[in-house]
């Protein structure tokens, strides 16, 4: 499965546009030439701008999260990757070739073997058992029942649904149904998982469980995941790379911590102001990269990937302590608790002007 992979992008979305309406090409031309925005396009051409100049690299083995509120175009965007929706203009490069140039046959093969999808409303087949649902991709590919049922049961066990193989989806709770959805995606053995608001329909506690399950599976399986959500907490928790979408346009994309520390747009500042920063920020983002000198009283060693919340717990809330930051066995810097506390001050406090609206 790893053949031909490099550290670069697994899926590269380039200059993607989507305009909904009767004559999208004409509207797109007007959009590009006259520089119209979403409201003008709707008013003057009666076309809806879905996506505008989207460029995203989905890197191999990472979770790329696309976050935006409803109407921002995030669900439209994820459906372009496996071409459930065709774009008006742009390219989607998957393993070096443009998906838009694929024939129906090639596209089906990609959907069957290389990309799987998890849906917000689960979209399970109500007349099939849980195991048959999980085995959908294999059944579609033409495997026999004797082959696909054991494979499906293996993944159902893995997502915590031991003993439910013979049940029907309506007998399961929402959280369990979505576990079936995830098992279905995993059984297909595709490297890419597209997750469209996969946890948004679940209760908060179950959602947290599912996020932990996903992270745990990801550690083990190293899939390339494109995850859509409207929940910033969820985005920050899962993302290796975070893309923030507003009105069909990307307004910032970066590592989650960078977005939190350096929001580039008032819209994002608004978003991040309610976030529990201690849980998201990691030691490496706030430490001082200096060699510890002899006169500092070091309270202990901490890993650079730990989040600030766990350090506060470790220090028992004592702001005078200083820790030595380690990257494995290498010393990379020091963290003063005072610095840590300062980093928890929300961005808006230091940037009054940005929240003037």
């Amino acid at each position, binding site marked *: 499965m790893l053949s031909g992979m490099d550290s670069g992008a697994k899926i590269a979305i380039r200059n993607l546009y989507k305009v909904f309406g009767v004559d999208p090409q004409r509207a797109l031309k007007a959009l590009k030439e006259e520089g119209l925005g979403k409201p003008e396009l709707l008013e003057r051409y009666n076309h809806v701008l879905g996506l505008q100049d989207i460029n995203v690299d989905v890197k191999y083995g990472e979770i790329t999260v696309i976050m935006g509120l409803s109407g921002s175009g995030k669900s439209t965007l994820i459906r372009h990757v*496996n071409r*459930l929706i065709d774009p008006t203009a742009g390219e989607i490069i998957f393993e070096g070739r443009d998906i838009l140039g694929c024939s129906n046959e090639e596209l089906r093969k990609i959907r*069957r*073997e290389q990309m*799987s999808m998890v*849906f917000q409303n689960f*979209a399970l087949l109500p*007349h099939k058992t849980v195991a048959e649902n999980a085995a959908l991709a294999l*059944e*579609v590919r033409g495997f026999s029942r004797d082959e696909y049922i054991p494979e499906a049961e293996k993944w159902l066990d893995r997502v915590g649904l031991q003993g439910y193989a013979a049940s029907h989806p309506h007998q399961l709770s929402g959280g369990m149904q979505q576990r079936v959805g995830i098992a279905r995606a995993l059984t297909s053995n595709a490297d890419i998982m597209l997750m469209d608001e996969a946890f948004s329909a679940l209760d908060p506690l179950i959602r947290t469980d599912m996020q932990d399950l996903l992270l745990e599976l990801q550690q083990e399986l190293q899939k390339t995941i494109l995850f859509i959500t409207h929940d910033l907490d969820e985005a920050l928790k899962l993302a290796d790379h975070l893309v923030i979408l507003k009105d069909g346009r990307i307004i910032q994309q970066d590592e989650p911590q960078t977005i939190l520390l350096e929001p580039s747009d008032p819209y994002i500042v608004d978003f991040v102001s309610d976030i529990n920063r201690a849980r998201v920020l990691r030691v490496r983002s706030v430490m001082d990269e200096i060699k510890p000198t002899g006169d500092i009283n070091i309270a202990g060693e901490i890993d650079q990937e730990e989040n600030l919340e766990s350090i506060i717990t470790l220090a028992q809330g004592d702001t005078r302590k200083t820790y030595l930051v380690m990257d494995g066995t290498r010393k990379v810097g020091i963290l003063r608790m005072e610095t840590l506390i300062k980093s928890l001050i929300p961005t808006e406090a230091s940037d009054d002007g940005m929240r003037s609206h």
Partner: protein
Amino acid sequence: MATYDQVFSTLGLESWCKSAAEASSGPVSMADLLAQNAGTDMPLPSIWELPFPSMDALHESCEAFPQSRVLTKSIENGFLGIKDELSFFLDPLTQPLSWFLEGALWLFETTPWWLMIPVLLGLVLLVSQSGKLVVFVAACLLGLAFIDYYSFAVQTLAVIFVCASLCVVIGVPIGIAMSRSDRLQRAVIPILDMLQTLPPFVYLIPLIFLFSVTEPKLYGIAIILYAIVPVVRLTDLGIRLVDKDVIEAANAFGMTERQKLIKVQIPLALPNIMAGVNQTIMMSLSMVVIASLVSAPGLGVLVLRGIRNLELGVGLVAGLGIVILAVILDRTTKLALARINTSQD
């Protein structure tokens, strides 16, 4: 003198009227004959009695103008003109229907009652999985047999069995095709509307011209045309109502159109399709009574006898027998439908 003489004379068409009058003599109505015999010119009617300028009224002023009876006559002639060609195609095409009906009637009639009733009860049990219903059906069938209506009831069942099965076999594919093409749907829906609203007697008329009344396919076609509508409509509706999210999932996992239809759309549309089948069976039952006018066997014949010979008791009991059959068929198919529903949701 007639009301609209003036119209033709101002248009300068008098000569055309006269010339045609000599050449042709259209059909004459009784009213005309009486008027001719009276031999007097009627006075011009007042404005309150002004007749609508219909074909007949205009004909009175101008002999060359066709009467409305010419219209119906020409439709009849037109139909008779293409009748032979139509029969040439339709006869062999519909011949299997006669065979099916004859075969089913023979099978249902020759099977002895002590075999037939248990088989029917077994079928009810298989479809409905309800012991209570089987007891009810047994009581009904034995009751009908006891009052000597068994053979008529069984004939009716045989006809419904064949016609409803054919409705499903023909109707479901049409419904599927309609659900996949908006254009086809737009074309077929008016036909379905017409079939559903046309009084059942009316489409017996051309069928009588096309086929011999002694052939079973005559009433077979009438029943199928009348009863096929709900199964077509509800198949189309059922497939169109399949959850879009599920269809999207099927697409996302790379199903072909065929796989989608067989593995997703038809199973999910099944409750609606079964509701259509239930309606189709009910409608064939009501049509089988009317079709007894064109020699369909069964309880309808007794109803007809009740009307013709004023045998009140025979007619009413036969009618009740039909109600009993309807209740049996309805309960059985409804229970099957309920089973599908619970397994899906």
